[in-house]
């Protein structure tokens, strides 16, 4: 059997890097997409190669359709197939609704929502041909429960859930599974930037009484990518220590 191939967007750091590395541990060759930080993406590539899998770093803004098209072509050309897409790339521009500029709203929607659409669309052709594929979209528990100061981010993450279900229905006849993962409060650069008060109040709301790690999320993604999840599609799996039930 040939090695399976995964493309992980926003994989130069945080949850994306953990996903890329965990997939490599599970035997995938991995394309590590990054938007700006080539150095860190190359470091993730090195780490994957040390595990014994092949990897390449590809720079592309996920909301740029032609760049994403080129990226997918490069993945297929390099590795010969594309079995798994993980739409992880995401940004925040937090602000209270009353103070939020429409530019801040648009930027987040562009990357987090349109980016997922563009990337799903771009891999569909290859996966339809293969008659198999796994697409995993990163949502967030705030997409389910809302969160003050993040109306743009919440809109994008709720939107991802709707797109996940729609893509799951459209692609099911071609044996392509589409699921979403909704992480809770995970320790990353993105959550480090959150206000201390908000952090401690969030911790109180987590039944398992700890913050999640990027690896907690990565392992769920690896499961959804695997053959063990072949009968699972259109679902939102929360990895949040019980935060939202």
């Amino acid at each position, binding site marked *: 059997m040939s090695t399976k191939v995964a493309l992980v967007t926003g994989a130069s750091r945080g949850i994306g890097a953990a996903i890329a590395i965990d997939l490599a541990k599970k035997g995938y060759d991995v394309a590590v997409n990054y938007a700006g930080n080539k150095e860190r993406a190359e470091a993730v590539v090195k780490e994957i190669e040390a595990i014994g899998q092949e990897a390449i770093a590809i720079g592309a803004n996920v909301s740029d359709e032609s760049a994403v098209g080129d990226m997918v072509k490069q993945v297929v050309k390099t590795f010969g197939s594309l079995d798994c897409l993980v739409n992880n790339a995401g940004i925040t521009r937090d602000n209270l609704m009353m103070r939020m500029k429409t530019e801040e709203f648009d930027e987040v929607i562009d990357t987090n929502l349109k980016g997922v659409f563009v990337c799903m669309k771009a891999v569909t*052709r290859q996966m*339809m*041909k293969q008659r198999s594929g796994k697409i995993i979209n990163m949502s967030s528990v705030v997409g389910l429960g809302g969160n003050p100061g993040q109306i743009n981010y919440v809109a994008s993450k709720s939107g991802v859930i709707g797109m996940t279900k729609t893509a799951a229905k*459209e692609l099911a*006849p*071609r044996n392509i599974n589409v699921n979403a993962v909704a992480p809770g409060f995970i320790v990353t650069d993105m959550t480090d930037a959150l206000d201390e008060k908000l952090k401690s109040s969030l911790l109180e709301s987590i039944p398992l009484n700890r913050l999640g790690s990027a690896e907690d999320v990565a392992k769920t993604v690896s499961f959804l990518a695997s053959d063990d999840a072949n009968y699972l599609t259109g679902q939102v799996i929360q990895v949040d220590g019980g935060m939202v039930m």
Partner: protein
Amino acid sequence: MAETFDRVKKIVIDRLDVEEDKVTKEASFKDDLEADSLDVVELVMELEDEFDMEIADEEAEKIQTVGDAVDYINSQA
């Protein structure tokens, strides 16, 4: 150009799993050959590969019958 028709016909038979004699130039993919919208998208993708061309979405939407596909391909040749 009979050759184009034959190549298109082969792909249609293969992809949609239909009898050869049903694949006429007049046959509509959706009405006569029982293709759903995803089948048609996929068929267009295969035609692009077979004839080494890119068919724009606006053009692809106009392709309803086997003859439409053949005519479009010939017009680009």
